[in-house]
């Protein structure tokens, strides 16, 4: 069952007098008890998408649905929405007000929503986030905690509202490698124990492999490939996913894409990846005869489906050819 859904979402900014289409047509669902990873390089719109899902950003078009109901932007509706959907940010140090104790940090949500039995809520949220016994931490300040503990406090702050979905924007990127696993394990455990769904935004494919059920690869405001983690990360169809996987340190033959991060104020015509596409550059696309299409024909927005899907002329053509070949064989 879908909990949180983005339907044909578009978010735009005006930056330096130009329109930046940070999110440019995204369909994405997070099902109940599901962990979805959203990956992509810097500036592709991951954070914007996450913020829009929380109603922190207003979409230019499309809508955010929670439990099938489109989100309204009255402050009452937003507040209700934010009880169900919670955000965990990348930088736990920054996410905690240095002048607030752990207690106050965790109790902030319940106070805003005027929930009863604040103290109990805080304590239980802390212990669920793995800070046990909670009393030990209550009146500490953030600077008296380690990075991992801080991130746990942030997560506890979200848990204190009993949300159904956690949107985590790079939850471990600023943590030490050794601590990273602990936080990821916590997310997994919360899913198992509380049935909490999560959308994890990351640029780290290893993280997706570690905890996600599904992965969506984003490029320049669009999801270009999505599907189950095992399928996408082992047999990527989109050249971009392939490139991302290939630059992981251990991989044998890295495909380093040239150029700088793409610019959302200047989205290329046709396939938005084509100027950097190594497949197109290597001539492989020409072999399948889609090189013309790549530069001219815009790809449709991928639907929000749980199955593996890809937005690439070349992949489609190859698949099409493979299908026609099998069909031909069958025939």
């Amino acid at each position, binding site marked *: 069952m879908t909990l949180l859904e983005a339907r044909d979402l578009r978010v735009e900014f005006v930056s330096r007098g130009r329109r930046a289409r940070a999110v440019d047509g995204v369909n994405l669902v997070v099902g109940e008890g599901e962990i979805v990873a959203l990956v992509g390089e810097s500036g592709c719109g991951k954070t914007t998408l996450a913020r829009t899902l*929380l109603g*922190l950003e207003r979409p230019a078009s499309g809508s955010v649905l929670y439990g099938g109901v489109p989100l309204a932007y009255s*402050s009452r509706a*937003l*507040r209700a929405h*934010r*009880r169900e959907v*919670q*955000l965990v*940010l*990348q*930088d736990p140090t*920054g*996410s*905690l*007000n240095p*002048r607030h*104790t752990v*207690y*106050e940090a965790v*109790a*902030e*949500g319940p106070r*805003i*929503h005027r929930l*009863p*039995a*604040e*103290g*109990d809520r*805080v*304590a239980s949220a802390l212990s669920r986030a793995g800070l046990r016994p*909670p*009393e*030990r931490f*209550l*009146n500490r*300040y953030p600077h008296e905690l380690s990075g991992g503990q801080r991130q746990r406090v*942030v997560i506890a*702050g*979200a848990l204190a*509202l009993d949300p159904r979905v956690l949107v985590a924007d790079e939850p471990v990127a600023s943590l030490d490698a050794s601590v990273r696993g602990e936080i990821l394990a916590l997310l997994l455990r919360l899913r198992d124990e509380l049935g909490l769904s999560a959308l994890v935004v990351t640029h780290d494919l290893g993280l997706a492999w570690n905890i996600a059920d599904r992965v969506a690869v984003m490029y320049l405001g669009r999801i270009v490939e999505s599907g189950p983690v095992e399928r996408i990360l082992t047999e990527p169809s989109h050249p971009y996913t392939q490139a991302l996987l290939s630059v992981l340190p251990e991989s044998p033959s890295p495909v380093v894409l040239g150029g700088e991060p793409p610019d959302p104020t200047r989205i290329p015509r046709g396939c938005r990846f084509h100027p950097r596409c190594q497949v197109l550059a290597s001539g492989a696309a020409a072999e399948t005869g889609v090189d013309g299409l790549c530069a001219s024909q815009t790809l449709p927005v991928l639907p929000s489906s749980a199955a593996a899907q890809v937005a690439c002329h070349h992949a489609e053509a190859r698949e099409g050819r493979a299908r026609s070949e099998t069909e031909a064989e069958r025939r």
Partner: protein
Amino acid sequence: MSPNAEGGGAGTSRAIARTRRRAALARFLRAYGGNRAGLCGAAILLVAVLAALVTPLVTDPSGMDVTRATGARMAPPSADFPLGTDESGRSVLLMLLWGARVSLLIGFMSALLSMMIGTGVGIAAGHFRGWASAVLMRVTDWFLVLPALVLALVLAAVLGGGASTIILAIGVTSWASTARLIRAQTLAVEARPYIERSRALGAGHWHVMTRHVLPNVAPLVLANTTLTVAGAIVTESTLAFLGAGSGQVSWGGMLRGSYDWGAATSGAWWYVLPPGLCIILVVLAFTLCGRALETVLNPRLRGAS
């Protein structure tokens, strides 16, 4: 002490807040104690404020009444008048003490006014976006560059004499830098992820401004107010000297008096020097305290020095 979390929300949070405040205060005092200049300033201020507070208890205000003055005119220091007398035979020492009340009061009140305007405008301009903030900033910048003393003189001249006018004139002309500072700090605070987190928890403007921004800018406001008091005392004396005085015996007023009655040319140093030195001392003390507070409370500066 470890408050019992299960023991119910309100009590716990209050207990925590109390320990937290006590710990913060102790930490602050320790840090402040490490600042020698700041300690010096605080000591001088303590003496000045105490003197101002105690004066009405231990001395008789009739000493300020020219019709009851007992000394000779502009008499040099003597046993009866340790700092000599003024042109009406009043004790300069006594005038200094009573003048401290007015100077400090005007300093504090105008700094308070300035701080309230500055903080309000600064937080609003930093928190809200769009035209409202733009307008606020334009006005702030305008007040910031304008020559405050000139504007204060005009205001004092236009509104007529009196302590409240002086307070108003100084307050209205000195808030801009506070507002600038507070706005910058507000922007910095609002850029912190914990504000985003707070919003994601459902917080509204009021919550963000009062729970996050205000406590974070408060120390800066405190430090800045201390500096503003210093400026206000100097401005008051300058206004008094240039003829826009409050009409009460203040240090600036005494300097004006010594000037009007030719104390300097007739060699009455005891009438010219003490009020000026008092102003310097107190202003310097406020400045030192303000700077010490800034260093102690502002982590950015703490890193630098």
